[in-house]
């Protein structure tokens, strides 16, 4: 074991060749993290240069004949189609409703596009559509147009949905990622990482003592309750793909502000933390549905938090941090043992560690 001659520091420790470009699209390009952002910034934004897309909000804000509209679209490719706490149909309605609500809009009309794989059980399709129906009723939106395509067996994965939606934005409201301001207080509407872990535990066949159910829900009525306080809300975002960490980074970069988060204040259910420990995942990067982050003026934080807590979807809302003047563009996490570190955007897909 003691062969010094074979271990020569001066001989130069070398390293691999760079992988500078991606000749193929990788899953990570759709994970909501850095590679997704590279696609948006290097391909989509330059291709479609306009002032509506440029802010990279959850939806576009357009004004037509003096009427302010929010317009948003999203697609859903979730596996499994049915999961604890919901299914792809409910997700597709809630997702677009929430994207509109994050613009401060009152969602009104949705479209629904379906790409169905040949052989998909009709019974399951009926179940998905029924689920969309009840989600639309719950969110007070109407599905007013749609499209159906069927692809050869093996050319799709059961069913893909795409929904777009429009909603009305009240006058005087200006909610946008760019509006985050030093001094703002950051509120999360409830426990995080629940949806992602619910999906992953089904996919990986993991069983826990209590089943973790997805938290998918329409957030428009929660947003209405927050707006009704008349408190100043600068930013609303639902931290879906990429999780809380990625969304906070997007906001920090978009508004060119620093963000400081206290790890111990972030509500994470014990069973979710346990699953994350087992799977080697960081809950801050795990997807959420039915949760929002709000950046609100400090003076109004208490009354907005109170209004959230009184709403069924905000009972466990909590203040998790603040916007600061320092370290613009960066999110800093105060760790549970009192240290501090950067909370970065997700790079690639979150992959479980070896040991």
């Amino acid at each position, binding site marked *: *074991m*003691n*062969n*010094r001659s*074979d*271990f*020569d*520091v001066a*001989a*130069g*420790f*070398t*390293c*691999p*060749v*760079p*992988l*500078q470009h*991606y*000749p*193929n*699209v*990788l*899953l*990570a390009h759709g994970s909501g993290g*850095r*590679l997704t952002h*590279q696609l948006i910034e290097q391909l989509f934004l330059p291709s479609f240069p306009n002032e509506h897309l440029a802010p990279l909000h959850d939806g576009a804000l357009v004004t037509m004949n003096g009427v302010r509209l929010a317009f948003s679209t999203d697609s859903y490719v979730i596996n499994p189609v049915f999961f604890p706490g919901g299914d792809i149909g409910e997700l597709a309605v809630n997702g677009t409703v929430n994207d509109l609500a994050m613009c401060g809009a009152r969602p009104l009309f949705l479209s629904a596009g379906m790409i169905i794989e040949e052989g998909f059980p009709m019974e399951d399709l009926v179940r998905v559509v029924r689920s969309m129906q009840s989600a639309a009723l719950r969110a007070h939106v109407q599905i007013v147009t749609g499209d159906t395509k069927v692809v050869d067996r093996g050319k799709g994965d059961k069913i893909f949905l795409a929904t777009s939606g429009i909603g009305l934005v009240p006058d005087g409201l200006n909610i946008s990622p760019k509006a985050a301001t030093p001094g703002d207080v950051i509120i999360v509407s409830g426990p995080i990482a629940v949806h992602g872990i619910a999906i992953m535990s089904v996919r*990986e066949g993991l069983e826990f003592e209590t089943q973790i159910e997805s938290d998918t829900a329409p957030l428009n009525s929660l947003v209405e309750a927050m707006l009704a306080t008349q408190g100043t809300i600068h930013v609303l975002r639902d931290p879906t793909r990429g999780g809380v960490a990625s969304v906070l980074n997007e906001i920090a970069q978009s508004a060119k502000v620093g963000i400081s988060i206290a790890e*111990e204040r972030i509500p994470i259910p*014990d069973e979710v*933390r*346990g699953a994350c*420990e087992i*799977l*080697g995942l960081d809950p801050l990067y795990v997807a959420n549905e039915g949760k929002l982050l709000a950046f609100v003026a400090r003076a109004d934080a208490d009354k907005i938090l109170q209004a959230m807590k009184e709403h069924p979807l905000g009972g466990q809302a909590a203040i998790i941090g603040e916007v600061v003047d*320092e*370290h613009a563009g*960066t999110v*800093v996490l105060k*760790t*549970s*043992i*009192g*240290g*501090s*570190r*950067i909370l*970065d955007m997700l*790079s*690639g897909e979150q*992959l*479980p*560690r*070896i*040991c």
Partner: protein
Amino acid sequence: MRFIDEYRDKALARRYIEQIAQVTTRKWTLMEICGGQTHTIVKYGIESLLPREINLVHGPGCPVCVTPLAMIDKAIAIASRDDVIFTSFGDMLRVPGSKRDLLSVKASGGDVRMVYSPLDAVKIAQQHPEKRVVFFAVGFETTAPANALAVWQAHQLGLRNFSILCSHVLVPPAIEAILSSPANRVQGFLAAGHVCAVMGYEEYLPLAEKYHVPIVVTGFEPLDILHGTYLAIRQLEEGRIEVENQYSRAVRREGNVAAQNLMRKVFEVSDRHWRGIGNIPGSGFRVREEFSAFDAEKIFNDVATIEVQESPECIAGLVLQGINKPHECGAFGTTCTPEHPLGAPMVSTEGACAAYFRYKREPTTERVNV
């Protein structure tokens, strides 16, 4: 969460930090061996809490980082075959080979699957008798027993379509290589608790004695790291040289004898090439001859000739040696990022460079200088 939160307690952490500050009178350099420990240190911001005199350097204990480039290329060559289902732990999938990584193989049609256990790969082999299922068996003594068990199980089941691509490495020879290097500056080690849970710690006694370094078997939670640091610094300050066991809730002196026996049944000690470091004699495992039917390098013998020269662009070897910190590399965060890693330590979250990139570029980099 029981048995986790106790080891992340803020008040106890503060007491350890105070104790460490009290016993520290001069500069000391400690190395944590394991990538899991590096991850904890940066994730919890532990360096920002320690006295300035204590310099933690990050050791070579990241299996993803030290798996040689040629082995990654072999994995990619095997995974690209139509008749193969290639299985691996998650973070090996993104490690760059000389041209591409396993995720790219998957994107261009290869059947590459992430598994949580090599035994899942054995199950896949049972379910797909028409395919040849290969598991990428990397890691230290920690993952070796499960990988040995997978081979043993496949052998018992009479499977003809399961094999492992074996690239196992061992900790003590790496510690010896670091200590015998003339450039060494490490004065004490936090040994990897999980490795010792398998191997015990008797094999560290001669190393501590020969090179006059304290070795503290240390766990992976923040309080474990702080406690291990405290024990190592106290030894150094008191002039003692011992092997201490901080991780006594998991580690016995003799280790897990059943696991060791299984490993010895399937594997034998061999020389290994460490990425960024070079050849270290007797520093790894290979599959024993009697189990060669489960050795992917023997089955796919056309990959045996794959040899690649690593490019001299980054200083990964110096980082893995603890001679340089990641941010002291010119490429760090500029031409080398987690999306475009020049070196393996930028790939895995356990890798020192990736950990630095994710958690402490700025504004907390001010006190990482050696």
